[in-house]
């Protein structure tokens, strides 16, 4: 139907307007294409190319092949950093993947007061990431002036180390990220749920299907596409975590919260080893590229 219409419009147009349409069409696209090239494509290509060179500052001096990769991979910190990064992703999936979905399911049941609840849950999402990090830095402050230690000491407990604790620091950073990120995800789930036809539930009720059966047989299948998208977005997003550990711990204590992203940053802007930074960036990129491809494959299966 639509294709037919397009065909007819095209036939109605003379040859001249057809060319004109193309030229002006591409002119309108031009700013986006230029930026797409310079901001997204060129950095990837140039980064891959320059990672094969020895760089002095930001100028390539000598072709060294995979030397940068060898240095980065054999660095004693690499395995630790990779493991930390995987830990960030794993913990963020545990702490942050299901809660927004479950909360959205619950808010979807409310008849009153959902306006306030949505406001309260989304408000942290409006706080800029750097302010979130710094606010939680003080919530986790290891002496009695931090909010959590204040609460603990008020109940007679002794102050905890929080982000100074090498075993749990990643968990605490992830909690601060989840606090601000959850509201937006929740709102998106909620919107997807509200698009589901009410009659499905009423029919299920008449058929005697229980509440959980309705959730698993009607609600969730209708939002699988969104769930998959958020799952992959979260993995890809958290795998690149950098600003939060940079602001909250600087990667410490003793490298316990160092992520691949932060290490890439440190190679370039702290240690001045641009070539190593580029190589580590490419390694991270390749790991994530696999994720992106998997997502597009799975998305095709679900959404056709």
């Amino acid at each position, binding site marked *: 139907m639509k294709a037919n*219409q397009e065909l007819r419009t095209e036939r109605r147009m003379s040859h001249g307007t057809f060319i004109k*349409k193309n*030229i*002006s*069409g591409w002119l*309108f*696209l031009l700013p*986006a294409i230029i*930026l*797409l090239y310079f*901001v*997204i494509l060129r950095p*990837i290509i140039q*980064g891959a190319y320059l990672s094969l060179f020895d760089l002095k500052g930001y100028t390539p001096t000598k072709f060294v092949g995979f030397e940068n990769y060898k240095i980065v991979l054999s660095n004693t910190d690499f395995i630790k950093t990779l493991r930390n990064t995987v830990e960030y992703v794993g913990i963020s999936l545990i702490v942050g993947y299901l809660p927004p979905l479950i*909360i959205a*399911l*619950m808010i*979807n*049941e*409310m*008849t009153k007061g959902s306006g*306030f*609840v949505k*406001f*309260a849950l*989304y*408000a*942290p999402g*409006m*706080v*800029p*990431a750097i*302010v979130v990090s*710094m*606010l*939680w830095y*003080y919530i986790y402050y290891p002496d009695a002036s931090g909010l959590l230690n204040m609460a603990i*000491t*008020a109940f007679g407990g002794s102050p905890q180390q929080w982000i100074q604790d090498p075993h749990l620091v990643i968990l605490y950073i992830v909690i601060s990220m989840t*606090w601000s990120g959850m509201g*937006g995800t929740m*709102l*998106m789930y909620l*919107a997807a749920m509200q698009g589901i036809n*009410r009659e499905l539930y009423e029919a299920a009720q008449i058929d005697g299907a229980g*509440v959980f059966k309705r959730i698993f047989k009607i609600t969730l299948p209708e939002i699988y*596409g969104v769930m998959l998208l958020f799952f992959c977005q979260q993995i890809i997003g958290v795998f*690149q975590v*950098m600003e939060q550990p940079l*602001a909250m711990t600087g990667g410490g204590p003793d490298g316990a919260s160092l992520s691949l992203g932060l290490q*890439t940053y440190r190679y370039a802007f702290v240690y001045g080893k*641009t070539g190593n*930074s*580029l190589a580590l*960036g*490419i390694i*991270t*990129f390749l790991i994530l590229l696999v994720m*992106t491809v998997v*997502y597009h494959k799975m998305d095709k299966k679900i959404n056709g």
Partner: protein
Amino acid sequence: MLKVKKKENGVICASELNTWNSKRVAFILINIIVIIIALVMLIPIIWMCLSAFKDTQEFLQKPATIFPKHIEFGKIARVWKNTQMSSAILNTVIMTGGCIISNLVVSCLAGFSLSKLKPAGWKIISKIIFIMLLIPMSMSTVPLFMFFIDLPIIHISLKNTFVPMWIMSGINVFNILMVKSFFDGIPESYVEAAQIDGASNMKIFTRIMLPLSLPLLATLAIFAFTVNWGQFFWPMLVIDKQELMPVGLKIYLLKKDLPIDEYMMALLLAVLPIMIVFILLQKNIMKGVAIGGVKG
């Protein structure tokens, strides 16, 4: 006590809540739990506001106080002055304003072309844009930085300007797709009628498409505002002049210099503009977020 007459959403149907049964109990519990969660989520923000007004001694005293003993409004002015907040806010306004403009202009032009002009090859471009949605960007930092400090061919450095942030904000593939799908909803006949009247594409774009999509433009602008207001990472890389720093960067650098209570006040001042916008426009903002869920 509890009467649910109308229930238009959710898994549980209204008719199931008329008698005391497990579903009614669950319904009440859900309401209580959600409200508790909502209140807990607000604690950090409330704590920030209260702490900002305590003085340093009160902050460290035991047992800790919840509410500040006396609220001294002079402190706002003092911290504002000490941290040179006015220039930081002004810088942020300029930086964010440029980001919003570049974002809207590029997204709308591209969305218009992909939706209505459809030049040969538009499908490939759409496909590329769609793939870019999930492309990881973390590795681009260094090459992009090299690009900004030494633009190819013309060899100009964009250090200590806001241009790098404006350029990066200009390309937002999600927004292009959003504009395209919004423009898709505007009937083809409007465009054709204008074309028959001899209107140029630019005229169609500015006189027909843009006026019809003001709500969308507002949503995109608000989002660009909230995303860019607190930027600190790129400003940290490209700006090293004190007088050019935006609030996000200021907040990051002030951490070491201020006592905790004054720092809380600085945080509060930095988020205040964004919180005011949120409180005033919360309905539109949350509707805008929800679009992501429907499109996804």
